[in-house]
């Protein structure tokens, strides 16, 4: 059967060579397909894995998804060293080169507009977690309720503490998001992360992405770093720089809230 074409990104034509040992998903070599002033970066993938049904089945296998996502990301990361790539969604697969060419032709105008928007910019991820303070073991034992009334009082106190933490977390996250959005070309809120998947401590109350000019990034990062130990019980995490994954949707990058 014919090999399919897995497309990682669309870029403007670039001169610099990619690392020689760089491979795509499944270890296949990367190819460039130029058409109409755009370049699609792709590799060949087998239909046994990337045809509609097998791919759908693979999406329920976390190890497979993880491996494919990391391969996709390593191609995008390599591209960011030589150009400003517009990343495509995981698993964008075409039947043949002519399908890729047709896509570059049909979507050309929009792709060029998106490339112009992300040009010279990177994405930063900022997350805020609220970490409820556990009563220390010894103190908890000493606090063993002497009566039912004591028990209810302790429970109420604990719940009030938790409520206060959530309220504080929410207003801190809102303020941080407002500040960071003002320093970026665009922002986007992702849903809070599932703790089972992230294995992170605490409750994720902000999971945002910001599109920031490369030259403004140092200042942006410093601004995030400054907030890190500002509030007890709240943890701020920074990831990046990423290619502009979260700003590749025609509606996502107007600089307005994605809410």
């Amino acid at each position, binding site marked *: 059967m014919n090999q399919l074409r897995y497309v990682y990104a669309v870029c403007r034509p670039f001169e610099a060579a990619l690392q020689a040992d760089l491979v795509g998903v499944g270890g296949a070599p990367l190819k460039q397909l130029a058409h109409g002033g755009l370049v699609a970066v792709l590799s060949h993938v087998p239909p046994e894995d990337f045809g509609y049904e097998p791919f759908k089945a693979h999406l329920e296998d*976390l190890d497979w998804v993880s491996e494919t996502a990391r391969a996709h990301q390593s191609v995008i990361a390599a591209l960011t060293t030589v150009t400003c790539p517009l990343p495509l969604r995981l698993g964008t697969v075409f039947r043949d080169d002519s399908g890729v060419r047709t896509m570059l032709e049909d979507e050309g105008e929009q792709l060029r507009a998106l490339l112009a928007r992300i040009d010279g910019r990177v994405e930063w991820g900022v997350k805020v977690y609220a970490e409820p303070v556990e009563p220390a073991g010894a103190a908890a034992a000493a606090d063993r309720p002497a009566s039912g009334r004591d028990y209810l009082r302790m429970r109420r106190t604990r719940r009030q503490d938790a409520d206060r933490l959530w309220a504080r*977390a929410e207003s801190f996250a809102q303020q941080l998001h407002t500040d960071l959005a003002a320093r970026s070309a665009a922002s986007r809120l992702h849903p809070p992360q599932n703790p089972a998947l992230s294995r992170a401590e605490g409750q994720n109350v902000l999971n945002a992405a910001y599109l920031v000019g490369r030259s403004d990034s140092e200042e942006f990062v410093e601004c995030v770093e400054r907030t890190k130990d500002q509030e007890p019980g709240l943890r701020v995490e920074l*990831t990046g*720089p990423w290619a502009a994954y979260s700003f590749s949707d025609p509606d996502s990058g107007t600089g307005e809230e994605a809410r």
Partner: protein
Amino acid sequence: MTVIERREIALVDLLDRLLAGGVVITGDVTLRIADVDLVRIDLNALISSVNEQVPSPFDLPGAAGAIEAR
């Protein structure tokens, strides 16, 4: 910047971007496997399969206080 670049990327941060970000091509020439709804449904299945393996941490009431994404 370089320090952050060298750190291994958490899978969950990657999936936020690769399954909910990136340009979605919906022309007839694709196999349509990048279809947004399909991927979203399957990611949920993926997460629930992980939940079965890993006992879910205590569900905190703060979940409701999280800032809503669109």
